[in-house]
């Protein structure tokens, strides 16, 4: 990257800058004429001196001459304005382009940082630099050359004009410039230093904030909030001090400038007035000079402002570039070179005297010499944290050795571009990262190295514009909407095959059941899955049949428009559908005006008040003695611990006044209670068959009277239609698994799975489950699920060599054994190097390398090593002893 700001500007924008300069230059003659014209208007057209009599042969009188000149002045105002507008737009575009380029360059460099760099640089700092710190640079770049040229030119034009009018006035105008030119830089220098200081401290602040977010659990667990706050307060205090100081100094500079600028007119009035009185200067010339002087202060101010911004931008640029140029940054070619032909890494992995040094120059891995024949399954064991971890990363080319060399199939690993290592080697670390995208996207990432086709709108004008804009800023023209999945690497020829392969991989890494579960609990848009809705409705019928055939039809109480569902809540029964959006959300349904309308119209409101009172009485009886923080409140009570006393008082009033004597608020409270009742579960006997019939009636009224505006707020149940607001599982079930029957859930689940398989829906459910969003850093998945996903990601592209760094550490032992076996089956003839978190897993491998400290101390087969009774044998002993 260019060392200096102007180096950067010149390299990437010289053509635009020159163009800008030319445009600026063209604008000056017009500016000069627009300054000259007022004098002519005042002296000739208004003053009546030297009237030309005719213009271009056409005779004009004084009034016509005045209007012609004024019209000319108006035209010049327009031309000057147009110049300014065009130049500003062009400048803005240039600045934004350069900002885009700079950010892209910086981000690109982050991707090539040596991994060790991330131990010393915090995420917060890097983000702060790329997003916030370089932002003002964009604006500055557009101004960097054109602004001083334009404003300097303007200034010069005005000055020349003044000197032409009268050299003494000209001199007066610039008489105080030397003082400013001497003092301002002196004052500015200190402001610059403070500016540097500010950048540094703000960066530290963002680092501190970033740390607090990563360490939030520790802060809570150790009551560290005050310490954290004190730390940030201290930093904010430093920043405040610096900013205040800068502000004060900047304002002093401003004050000085303004003061001097206002001193100059004093000279004009005195000298100019004297000249006019003596008759050496026309009155018109003095007015024009005064007008010009007013125009003079603007460019002068701009120039001084530019000087300040220049200083600021230089500091920012230097400080940012310094941070983004660490030693050991990978050359861009190594990241982007495409292999000339299909390079294969099938071959022996050879290391000779590989040594890796840490930051203090101590060897993390010392003289590692080894040959791993293709197809071998090698385990790396040894205490954690030692050389084993680093050695694994060296083999995956995530770290580069300081001495010695590694080669695979004869090719030096250090010289292979990432397009080979990142496609031919599969690597999974102990805490793999999942991106904030769907599971599918996270797995497919393993085979998304470059676009393999054009974007869908590649040839449209919009697509072409987008690419041209990217190219103009030196950005990548690869489009994220293009097809990126390398089907050949995955070994499939079509999307269907790819889906099948994904399903197979999920099975391999023992993630199939989890994803299947995600799928069942997903709410899908039927338009995105053509034909699926009908098949789900078919599965619904099939499940009903199967339940009947098994003689357990009563385990699911189906939704029936004409029947009350005793295993669903009152709210669900009234709504008879799934709420869409917040309007009829089951928790707040009682408050909705339409629901109130329905209760009023059917007269249920009085019954609900009565039942609500009975519920409240029961709740008070059951829960009043419990401490307010008792977990039963959240698990079982219809009334929260805070509200319980309110209801106690309310019940007292109801006792005295009767239900009809209560005010509206009290009644509302009572009416809202029965909505959560599920007769079969709560067994309170309050929703009697008679009430059930009335609720069915209310259900009809609810639908009939539903205002058009609320039609979309509920997806009604219909036995032969797919419900787009409900989950896949609820759609197949179309009812409630009954309460109070032992094993009902398990039995229904079994039949559900059977029907899904029978109807060939399993793949679709898996496919939908793959759409599950992993959350930020995969937070919606467990650690084990994240590891399994990462394994699938690495296996997807069928790497020649698979390097696993404690990649199953988060799995339970049973799952771990299954996954290891399945992975071996998957990569049968290919090389596997697996760094193990437990030495006990080593017997599955043909060869074991034992690390102690930074060296390999034993190397051989399991039996050999055990018989030898050395380090490995004692590792196994220790593990057994530790359980």
């Amino acid at each position, binding site marked *: 990257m260019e060392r200096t700001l102007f180096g950067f500007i010149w390299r990437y924008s010289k053509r635009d800058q020159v163009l800008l300069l030319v445009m600026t230059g063209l604008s000056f003659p017009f500016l000069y004429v627009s300054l000259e014209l007022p004098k002519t208007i005042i002296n000739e057209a208004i003053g009546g001196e030297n009237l030309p009599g005719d213009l271009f042969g056409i005779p004009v009188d004084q009034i016509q001459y005045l209007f012609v000149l004024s019209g000319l002045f108006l035209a010049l105002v327009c031309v000057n304005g147009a110049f300014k507008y065009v130049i500003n737009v062009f400048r803005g575009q240039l600045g934004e382009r350069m900002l885009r380029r700079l950010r892209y360059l910086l981000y690109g460099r982050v991707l090539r940082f040596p991994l060790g760099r991330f131990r010393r640089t915090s995420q917060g700092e890097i983000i702060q630099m790329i997003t916030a710190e370089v932002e003002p640079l964009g604006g500055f770049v557009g101004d960097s050359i054109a602004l001083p040229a334009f404003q300097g030119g303007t200034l010069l034009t005005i000055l020349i004009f003044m000197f032409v009018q009268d050299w003494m006035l000209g001199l007066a105008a610039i008489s105080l410039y030397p003082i400013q030119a001497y003092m301002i830089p002196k004052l500015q220098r200190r402001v610059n230093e403070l500016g540097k200081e500010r950048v540094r401290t703000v960066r530290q602040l963002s680092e501190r904030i970033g740390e607090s977010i990563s360490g939030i659990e520790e802060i809570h667990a150790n009551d560290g909030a005050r310490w954290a706050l004190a730390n940030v307060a201290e930093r904010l205090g430093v920043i405040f001090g610096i900013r205040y100081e800068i502000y004060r100094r900047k304002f002093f500079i401003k004050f000085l400038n303004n003061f001097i600028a206002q001193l100059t007119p004093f000279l004009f009035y005195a000298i100019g007035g004297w000249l006019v009185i003596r008759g050496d200067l026309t009155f018109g010339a003095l007015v024009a000079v005064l007008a010009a002087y007013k125009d003079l202060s603007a460019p002068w101010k701009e120039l001084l402002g530019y000087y300040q911004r220049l200083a600021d931008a230089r500091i920012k640029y230097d400080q940012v570039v310094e941070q983004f140029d660490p030693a050991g940054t990978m050359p861009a070619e190594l990241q982007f070179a495409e292999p000339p032909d299909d390079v294969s890494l099938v071959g022996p992995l050879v290391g000779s005297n590989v040594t890796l040094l840490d930051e203090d120059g101590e060897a993390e891995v010392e003289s590692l010499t080894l040959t791993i024949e293709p197809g071998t399954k090698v385990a790396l064991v040894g205490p954690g944290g030692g050389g084993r971890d680093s050695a694994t990363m060296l083999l995956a080319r995530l770290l580069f050795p300081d001495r010695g060399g590694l080669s695979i199939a004869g090719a030096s690993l250090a010289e292979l571009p990432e397009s080979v290592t990142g496609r031919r080697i599969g690597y999974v670390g102990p805490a793999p990262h999942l991106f904030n995208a769907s599971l599918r996207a996270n797995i497919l990432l393993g085979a998304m190295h470059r676009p393999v086709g054009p974007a869908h709108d590649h040839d449209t004008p919009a697509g072409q514009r987008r690419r041209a804009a990217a190219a103009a800023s030196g950005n990548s023209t690869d489009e994220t909407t293009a097809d990126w999945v390398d089907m050949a690497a995955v070994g499939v020829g079509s999307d269907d095959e790819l889906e099948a392969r994904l399903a197979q991989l999920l099975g391999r890494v023992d993630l199939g059941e989890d994803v299947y579960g995600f799928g069942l609990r997903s709410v899908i848009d039927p338009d995105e899955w053509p034909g699926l809705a009908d098949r789900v409705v078919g599965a619904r019928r099939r499940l009903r049949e199967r339940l009947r055939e098994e003689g357990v039809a009563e385990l699911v109480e189906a939704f029936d428009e004409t029947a009350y569902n005793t295993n669903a809540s009152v709210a669900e029964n009234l709504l008879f559908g799934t709420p869409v959006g917040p309007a009829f959300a089951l928790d707040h349904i009682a408050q909705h005006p339409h629901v109130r309308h329905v209760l009023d119209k059917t007269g249920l409101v009085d019954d609900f008040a009565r039942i609500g009172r009975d519920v409240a009485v029961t709740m008070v009886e059951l829960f009043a003695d419990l401490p307010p923080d008792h977990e039963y409140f959240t*698990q079982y009570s219809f009334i929260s611990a805070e509200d319980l006393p309110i209801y106690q008082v309310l019940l007292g009033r109801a006792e005295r006044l009767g239900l009809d004597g209560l005010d509206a608020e009290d009644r509302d409270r009572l009416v809202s209670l029965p909505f959560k009742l599920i007769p079969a579960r709560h067994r309170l006997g309050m929703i009697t068959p008679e009430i059930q019939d009335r609720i069915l009636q209310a259900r009809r009224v609810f639908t009939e009277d539903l205002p058009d505006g609320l039609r979309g707020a509920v997806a009604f149940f219909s036995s032969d239609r797919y419900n787009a607001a409900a989950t896949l599982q609820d759609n197949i079930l179309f009812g409630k698994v009954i309460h109070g*029957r032992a094993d009902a859930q398990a039995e229904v689940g079994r039949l559900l799975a059977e029907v899904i398989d029978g109807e060939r829906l399993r793949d679709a459910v898996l496919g939908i489950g793959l759409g599950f969003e992993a959350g930020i850093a995969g937070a919606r998945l467990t650690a084990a699920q994240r590891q399994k996903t990462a394994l699938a990601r690495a296996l997807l592209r069928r790497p020649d060599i698979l390097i696993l760094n404690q990649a199953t550490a988060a799995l339970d032992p049973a799952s771990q054994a299954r996954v290891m076996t399945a992975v071996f089956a998957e990569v049968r003839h290919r090389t596997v190097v697996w760094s193990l978190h437990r030495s006990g897993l080593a017997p599955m491998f043909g060869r074991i390398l034992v690390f102690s400290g930074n060296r390999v101390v034993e190397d051989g087969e399991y039996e050999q090593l055990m018989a030898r009774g050395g380090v490995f044998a004692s590792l196994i002993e220790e593990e057994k002893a530790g359980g």
Partner: protein
Amino acid sequence: MSLNQEVELLKNIPLFSRIATSRLKLLAFTSERLDWDASQTLFRQGDDGDAAYIIMEGSAAVLIETDAGEVEVARLRRGDVVGEIAILCDVPRTATVRATEALTTLRVTKETFFRLVTEFPEVAIEIMRELAARLERTNAQLREALGTGGG
């Protein structure tokens, strides 16, 4: 069966006879009522225990798995509590329990059960008494077995 009927039933069980009605109601309300078909298994010997069961209606057999197959060691009837050992001692189920006819139980989760025992010493004492009685029965059986074996 409504909650109130369940409470009436619980009142007639010696173990709960001294507990206030409102507490029994809370116990019933926070417990799941489950119906079982004849020969359905409540839990199996060796399973992890997460709940105890109060027999409300019907009967169930307590079976111990031996080399010779399952041996019935007790018959449970209305009012009996079963499955409390596994949650008290945090050990796997010590026996299999299977319904011998249509059965209705209240399933009391581990948390609810512990709360019951800590909040009501009289329940704890009743359970101790029951466990002691079982131990005594087992001892008697053991003596008998040894006596037969020795003589």
